[in-house]
């Protein structure tokens, strides 16, 4: 179903972090941007679709009062908004937002770090663009910071802090089907496997809280009102976002799941775990019966690699890319 393409070489190897691959497709310029996090650096590659041109850039983590920061970056992700695309980088010290090509930093938000270091780690993790103009970022305390993003310029403001989660945020995802009918706009997940479903607005509204089982949920997606969550037990669960009803449960992987992605136009689901396997599934929604069907389509094994990032490169799921711990390349697969 898929075959391996030529890999893209990256300057450094990928760190073992959840969701460690960012992909942004720039159709008008026939380019795709990729981001991979390595310790305190984000490696960006801009790849032309004809496979002939690759340009590289490195972004560093930032820290107040220090020239070069060693603070570890937890995640880097693209936030596509209707008016602009931004690249958000979250670290142990704060949140950096760049123009999508990484050329200019447009905003910096420092985390509240206690003056004397505590035993509890402090970091930001979990990034999502929501609806027209919001970017939400999670924090280790469980709080979610909601930023209001203007269509141009750097006048980004912190609009709200959502305090619902009690454990560190792991991942967040917006409703990606493009449908305006879906009530839920955002889902957030934490280290205890708890999922919160939100409606965006001037004041974000909590629609539902789906409790976890003390198993971390490192990766979550929201599509057509269905939450797709991957857990540390290797399970994937599909819930109806607003009601919390469990649609399906898949014993998908033999190790911790690190990344999920959905191709919104085709309903393809991608899952990747530390067990070296990437799996492709197909989700079908039946609105009449309000049911979801899951079918397994394909496996790819990345030999001797603990996978840490996997994303579709386009909305149909025609191609996907994979990163693994200690690998200095982005492996690509295309449909045959």
């Amino acid at each position, binding site marked *: 179903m898929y075959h391996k393409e030529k890999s893209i070489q990256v300057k*450094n190897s990928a760190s073992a972090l959840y969701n460690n691959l960012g992909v942004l497709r720039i159709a008008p310029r026939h380019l795709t941007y990729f981001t991979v996090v390595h310790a305190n650096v984000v490696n960006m590659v801009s790849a032309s679709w004809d496979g002939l041109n690759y340009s590289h850039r490195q972004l560093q983590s930032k820290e107040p009062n220090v020239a070069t920061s060693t603070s570890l970056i937890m995640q880097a992700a693209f936030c596509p908004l209707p008016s602009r695309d931004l690249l958000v980088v979250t670290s142990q010290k704060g949140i950096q937002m760049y123009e999508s090509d990484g050329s200019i930093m447009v905003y910096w938000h420092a985390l509240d770090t206690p003056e004397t270091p505590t035993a509890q780690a402090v970091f930001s993790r979990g990034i999502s663009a929501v609806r027209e103009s919001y970017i939400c970022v999670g924090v280790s305390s469980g709080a979610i910071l909601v930023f209001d993003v203007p269509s141009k310029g750097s006048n980004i403001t912190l609009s709200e802090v959502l305090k619902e989660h009690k454990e560190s945020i792991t991942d967040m995802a917006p409703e990606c089907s493009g449908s305006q009918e879906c009530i839920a706009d955002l889902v957030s997940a934490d*280290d205890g496997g708890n999922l919160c479903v939100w409606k965006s607005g001037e004041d974000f509204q909590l629609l539902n809280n789906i409790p976890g089982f*003390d198993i971390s949920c490192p990766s979550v997606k929201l599509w057509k009102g269905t939450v797709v969550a991957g857990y540390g*037990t290797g399970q994937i669960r599909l819930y109806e976002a607003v009601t919390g009803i469990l649609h399906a449960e898949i*014993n998908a992987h033999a190790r911790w799941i690190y990344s999920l992605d959905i191709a919104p136009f085709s309903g393809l689901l991608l899952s990747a775990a530390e067990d070296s396997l990437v799996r492709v599934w197909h989700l079908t929604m039946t609105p009449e019966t309000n049911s979801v069907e899951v079918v397994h389509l394909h496996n790819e094994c990345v030999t*001797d690699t603990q996978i840490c990032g996997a994303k579709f490169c386009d909305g149909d799921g025609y191609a996907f890319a994979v990163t693994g711990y200690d690998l200095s390349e982005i492996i690509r697969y295309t449909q045959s």
Partner: protein
Amino acid sequence: MIMAFKYQVLLCPRPKDLLLITYNHIDTIREFVKDTPVVGNKVDETHRKIIETYSSLPEGEFQLLRQTLLIFFQDMHIRVSLFLKNQLQNPNGRFSLSTSGPVPYGMDVPGLIRTFDRKGREVRRSEFPTGGSYTSPIRKGCFELHGDRVIRLGMNMYTVNHPEETHTSKAHSVKTDDTPNLLAKEELNLLARLMGSMKADDMPKTETGFQINLFPTDQEEEEEAETSSGAEEPLFGVINIQAMQDEQAATQLAQIVGQFAEGEEQPENLSSSKGDDLLAMMDDL
């Protein structure tokens, strides 16, 4: 051995099993010092402190701990002869990760999709091919002061049995290294010639055509008498070098060493400034 540390952290089945690996280390230390109760008590105290501090840490935070450690180990691909020999590591320095075997405790064997109706009743089950061959989970290890840890990571790597190795190769016990004795004798001669400049090294130099095992397995150690510190023996077709017992060989070797040591002074002199040589020559005039 940093690669051993990396191996244990990377292959740790569940993040919380980092504790079980640590307890394996502590159990072994306790065994070493069992004849000294004072030290043994300190080991127990350390163990208790670890239990107290880390037992209640949630799994997600253990994973963060493990991810941070993995950042430290990133890009290290030092080849270790023991790992290469047991096929735990590939020639390119990366560890081999198996897609078969028992799943970690608390996980389900992959392969099942269950669908539910709105009332929570299971309406369908289907299976999918996993691309590996997984079996039911291993038992839960003991997180207390004493008990069966179940996990083998963190135990003595130099014992012959390696149960965590799921590869079918049993090469380390039936190795077909048919080096005839003549070749072994030549190898020893080469070794003797190299003795002056040879450093103890546990990396295999494949071009020399023989293996040096500086860390014979416990079984082999039991079978052999004391060896002198500078002599190594090949793994199979074992030739015992017992310089202590064979005085004639010892004196011969001592002579060789003596000649070698004198020989070495010359290269050292060459490396000192040529000016000194010139002065020495001029003094002779």
